[in-house]
């Protein structure tokens, strides 16, 4: 409770002399997040919410939270007046609350006074003096609302700094219109000068320069919502990468992350105090930690209210059964193996953890080693035939090619894989065929195998089907 009390809340006013401020403060708060409006936006049904809140709501159900009217994020408009009300109220709040709390303790007719005070001009004086000390930002902000830009001042100063150097470059001011021009031009100019500033030389610069930073001022363009169902996974990932945000995770997570980013970005575009992309990314990161992690469970169809659990179970029964059977078999196998041999459990791990391989590398040429080596080309006849060919060649040149300490990519091994322990000859082949996987080996070591063939090509045939193409190019460019 005490923790919650620390949060500012409209009820802070309730037991003070200004209890009438409670509804006032409540009216300045977003109905969704219950915080003071942050970048208030008005909907077509004339309800106001924080930009981020209403955008999230529209993503969720496309309806106005207050009146349930359908609406769209791109129809939102800024509500500057509310922003200003919130800013000024927030600035005045601590002082007013303090005053109201102290007065509440004293007698009743005393309590009348602050109330009246707030309603009269005193309010402004108090606010101003308060702001001067604690919230200088507000004064700047309200001006920026009025003029559309707050950046003018510092830039003009810059310019006047430039002006100090200009006279040394042989320019001067026209005494009538104060335009800056070259000394030699002044007299000709004076004949024509009608007192209005002329668009030349420094005068132009003075006016154009402040407008220059205005151009980057309008915040970056709003991001469009994507029709995710039209995008393939890769295209979607590309979009996220282009935006500079993380593209990992399940498709559902990616979609949610993108949606959140669009909301953050667009509400930042609405804001009168736009934050940098870095800050937005940090915000996305905190979203990721608080809500993104649950993505894999929350948004899936299974969790939907109208999800037909029985139907799902029925339609996927085969799959479920298969998985259960697999799991049972796996467990039985594992248990059998642990009994059979101490080292055996490693084999199961190899499936998922190819990095375990190097531990066993030193024992490469022993038969035990053969058992441990995964069988990457089981069932791939083409690859196997190449392997055998290679093995024959290699056999004639001895076994010097085996590399050690090189992790061997774990193959996609299935349950169908025949019992590996007593599989003599093919595994033997395998061992000899494997060396080329370690492409880092000095190529001289390869030469004995097949001097006539381009090594890089040969070597990579054993890795992945795609590799040879890439590496052949590399190889040819080298040679």
């Amino acid at each position, binding site marked *: 409770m005490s923790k*919650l009390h620390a949060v500012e809340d409209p009820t802070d006013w309730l037991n003070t002399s200004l209890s009438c401020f409670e509804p006032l403060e409540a009216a300045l708060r977003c109905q969704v997040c*219950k915080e003071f409006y942050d970048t208030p936006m008005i909907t077509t049904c004339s309800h106001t919410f924080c930009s981020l809140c209403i955008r*999230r709501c529209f993503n*969720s159900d496309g309806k106005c*939270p*207050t009146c*349930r009217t359908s609406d769209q994020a791109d129809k939102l408009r800024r509500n500057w007046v509310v922003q200003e009300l919130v800013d000024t109220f927030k600035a005045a709040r601590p002082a007013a609350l303090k005053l109201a709390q102290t007065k509440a303790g004293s007698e009743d007719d005393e309590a009348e006074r602050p109330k009246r005070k707030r309603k009269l001009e005193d309010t402004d004086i108090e606010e101003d003096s308060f702001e001067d000390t604690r919230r200088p930002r507000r004064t700047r902000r309200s001006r920026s609302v009025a003029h559309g830009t707050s950046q003018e001042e510092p830039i003009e100063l810059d310019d006047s700094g430039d002006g100090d150097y200009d006279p040394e470059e042989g320019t001067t001011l026209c005494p009538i219109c104060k335009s800056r021009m070259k000394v030699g031009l002044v007299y000709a100019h004076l004949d024509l000068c009608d007192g209005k500033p002329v668009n030349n030389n420094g005068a132009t610069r003075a006016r154009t320069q402040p407008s220059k930073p205005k151009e980057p001022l309008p915040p970056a363009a709003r991001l469009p919502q994507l029709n995710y169902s039209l995008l393939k996974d890769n295209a979607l990932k590309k979009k996220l990468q282009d935006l500079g945000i993380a593209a990992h995770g399940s498709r559902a997570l990616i979609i949610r992350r993108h949606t959140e980013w669009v909301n953050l970005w667009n509400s930042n575009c609405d804001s009168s105090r736009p934050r940098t992309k870095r800050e937005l990314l940090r915000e996305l990161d905190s979203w990721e930690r608080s*809500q993104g992690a649950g993505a894999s469970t929350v948004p899936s169809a299974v969790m939907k209210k109208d999800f037909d659990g029985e139907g799902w179970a029925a339609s996927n029964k085969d799959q479920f059964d298969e998985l259960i059977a697999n799991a049972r078999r796996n467990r039985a196998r594992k248990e059998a193996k642990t009994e059979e041999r101490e080292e055996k459990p490693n084999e199961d791990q190899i499936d998922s953890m190819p990095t375990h391989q190097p531990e066993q590398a030193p024992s490469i040429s022993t038969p035990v080693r053969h058992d441990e080596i995964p069988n990457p080309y089981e069932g791939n006849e083409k690859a196997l035939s190449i392997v055998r060919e290679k093995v024959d060649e290699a056999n004639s040149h001895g076994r010097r090619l085996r590399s050690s300490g090189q992790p061997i990519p774990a193959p996609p091994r299935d349950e169908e894989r025949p019992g590996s322990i007593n599989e003599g000859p093919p595994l033997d082949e395998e061992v000899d065929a494997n060396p080329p996987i370690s492409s880092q080996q000095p190529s001289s070591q390869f030469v004995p195998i097949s001097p006539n063939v381009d090594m890089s090509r040969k070597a990579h045939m054993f890795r992945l089907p795609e590799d040879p193409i890439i590496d052949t190019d590399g190889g040819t460019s080298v040679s």
Partner: protein
Amino acid sequence: MQGHLPPGIELIKVDDFQEWLVDLRVLDSNPLYENEVYRLKFTFGKNYPIEAPEVVFAKDATHPIPWHPHIYSNGIICLDLLDNAGWSPVHNVESIAVSLQSMLTGNSKKERPPGDENFVKYNTQRPKDINFLFHDNSV
């Protein structure tokens, strides 16, 4: 919200933002609910208030489940407000509690929803996953 809850509604446990307990009393002299205090359990998801919290009546020695044709005997409440389709982010704990209070106040039937026994026996779903059919607009 703490300072001025409507009469008959009392916060019991508000230690975190995951689960709140709220006690509810029906104030008028409805014989069904007189002299009873009901305990509501609010469970807030990560997406609250965009998504509805889970709200059920919790039963214990001193807090029974109120009789109502839309409240199952395991405490699950069938109210469109609590369904994501009927939920709106402007609702809060107070407004939900008031809605439930008025839902009880307006009821005169000492009934459970049809199929209550079966539902209570076999339901393993979370309330938010149940596909309620909102047919009764009189409540």
